[in-house]
């Protein structure tokens, strides 16, 4: 099967101050097959979020190659990169990262608008998606008026609105209680099963990781272990 994502010997160094560097990724290679679900695990500072950012085109590596499907994205310009983030990748973050001044509906539709869908079509699609995720009654609510679980559902809807090939989630349950965590993980697994969307999940939580087919362990900017989860 073709790879949904490929990283080839990727390095990423951040400069914190003069002569003070962090090597967040030190020559990481990883292939993720289309339709696979992968949990990236590891302690804080091991480079798992950076891996997700580089793989999703939010950040650019210093060296190495990053491929989304058959598109190499580490050498592409800002406009193309924005289009790839918009149309081929969906992001879900730990802190939900919804825009506080927009309603649930507007938050989801905005991603459609950035993909060039037009406001009316985006709103229509956003309404359908939120309805399917059980938020049909909460369309006009602003994030502050929604519970954590509801906010993360809105964020999932926003990530799905452009039907991306890869969904990337960075600690998606980090701010949720156990019931809501199970709910969100169940939702992501369901999406993967129904649509075949590739899922890349950054998590500390073994329970969350166990919902994935494959587990990648990171330490100090290296992948130390990449193995299928024992079923």
């Amino acid at each position, binding site marked *: 099967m073709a790879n949904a994502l490929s990283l080839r010997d990727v390095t990423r160094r951040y400069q914190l101050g003069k002569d003070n560097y962090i090597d967040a990724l030190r020559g990481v290679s990883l292939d993720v097959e289309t339709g696979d679900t992968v949990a990236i695990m590891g302690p804080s500072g091991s480079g798992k979020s950076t891996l997700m950012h580089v793989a999703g085109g939010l950040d650019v590596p210093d060296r190495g190659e990053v491929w989304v499907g058959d598109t190499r994205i580490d050498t592409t310009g800002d406009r193309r990169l*924005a289009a790839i983030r918009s149309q081929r990748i969906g992001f879900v973050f730990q802190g939900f*990262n919804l825009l506080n001044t927009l309603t649930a509906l507007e938050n989801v539709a905005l991603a459609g608008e950035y993909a060039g869908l037009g406001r009316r079509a985006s709103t229509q699609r956003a309404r359908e998606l939120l309805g399917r995720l059980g938020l049909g009654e909460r369309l006009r609510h602003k994030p502050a008026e929604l519970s954590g679980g509801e906010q993360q559902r809105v964020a999932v809807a926003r990530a799905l609105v452009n039907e991306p090939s890869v969904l990337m989630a960075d600690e998606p349950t980090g701010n949720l209680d156990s019931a809501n965590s199970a709910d969100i993980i169940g939702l992501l697994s369901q999406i993967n099963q129904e649509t075949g969307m590739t899922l890349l999940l950054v998590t500390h939580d073994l329970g969350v990781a166990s919902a994935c087919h494959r587990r990648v362990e990171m330490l100090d900017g290296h992948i130390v272990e990449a193995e299928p989860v024992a079923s």
Partner: protein
Amino acid sequence: MRTLRNVFRRKTRAVLTIVGIAIGVLALVVMGSVAEKLQLLVDGGTAYYADKVIITDGSTFAGFGMSPISADVLVDAEKIDGIERASVTLNFLLDDDVQMMSMGTPPMVDATDFRDEGYEDFVTPVAEGRALEAMDAGKVAVGADLVQQLDAEVGGTVEIRGRSFEVVGIHERTLSAPDSTVRMTLADAQDIFIETLPDSVAENLEVEDLATSIVLFPEEGLDPDAMVDVVAEELGDSYNVQGPAGFEQLVKEPLQIFNYLIYTVALIALIVGGLSIINTMTMSVSERTREIGIRKAIGATRGAVMRQFIAEAALIGLLGGLLGLALGAASVFGANGSDLYGTSELFLLTPRLALGSVAFSLVLGVLAGLYPAWHASRLSPVEALRYE
């Protein structure tokens, strides 16, 4: 709508910034209205002086004074080669004591011997009644700005310097000097004028010989400015001879400097407002760093981020411009309606000034938004997302 919501996210700050712009635009509208009015007066003057040579008493300042000159000069002037026609003019202030300093033209009495008929192109049309004619002794035609002050109506009477005159006509508004002018026959004007002169001057003058200027119309095709030297040489030193170039030099150029000053002051006020937009937008970008990161993560291009922030800055500029125009228009119309600055209207808010002021503040908003928007668009999505 979203842009409006974003601008008013910090209500006090947005309102203060908009008021800052509005004050700049208010200054531009009010000061620009004075400049526009003065410009119109000067344009009127330029048109009036364009085709003639004017002789005044040599002791008057720059040819615009009201010292008496002998009407007899006309006879000599008309003999000069190249001069086709000469006409006697008598001008003096309508009120004997000018209490209010007028920024425009003061109310005047204007009289001629009607020898300029057919030569004078600068004729003020009549709005009501009819134009004054040579045989209209005891009658006047009143300029538009003076109707209220004199309580004038066609067929009624008005009082000028203690004498009653019948009103035969009211002139159309020209937005220039004739608006504050009463026209009467030369003989009537001479009767009034002789009484205004000191006895020592008056006793050496014949009333029918009184004038304040002689207007010369050169033959067609001759340049009035070229005739100035010819006329001056023929008549001698005791007269002041002035052509169109003289008027331009005396009035137009100083006015241009005055206009530059007025607009410079208004522009400085606006630029200060523009800086406050830059300040507001820079703070807004820095407060919304995380939001910019989110927008980029979900697919916003640099261009989309730039457009968003420029639109917000432009909206601040536009709202400030509209508010400033509203305040300016209210001030200008209020001041014109009152007699604070004399009877003639001091301000002229032209459509080009109104549109220009709003357009300028809109452009100012866009320019002020450029740097903060550019800065926002360059933020790295990852770093912006980390920002707390």
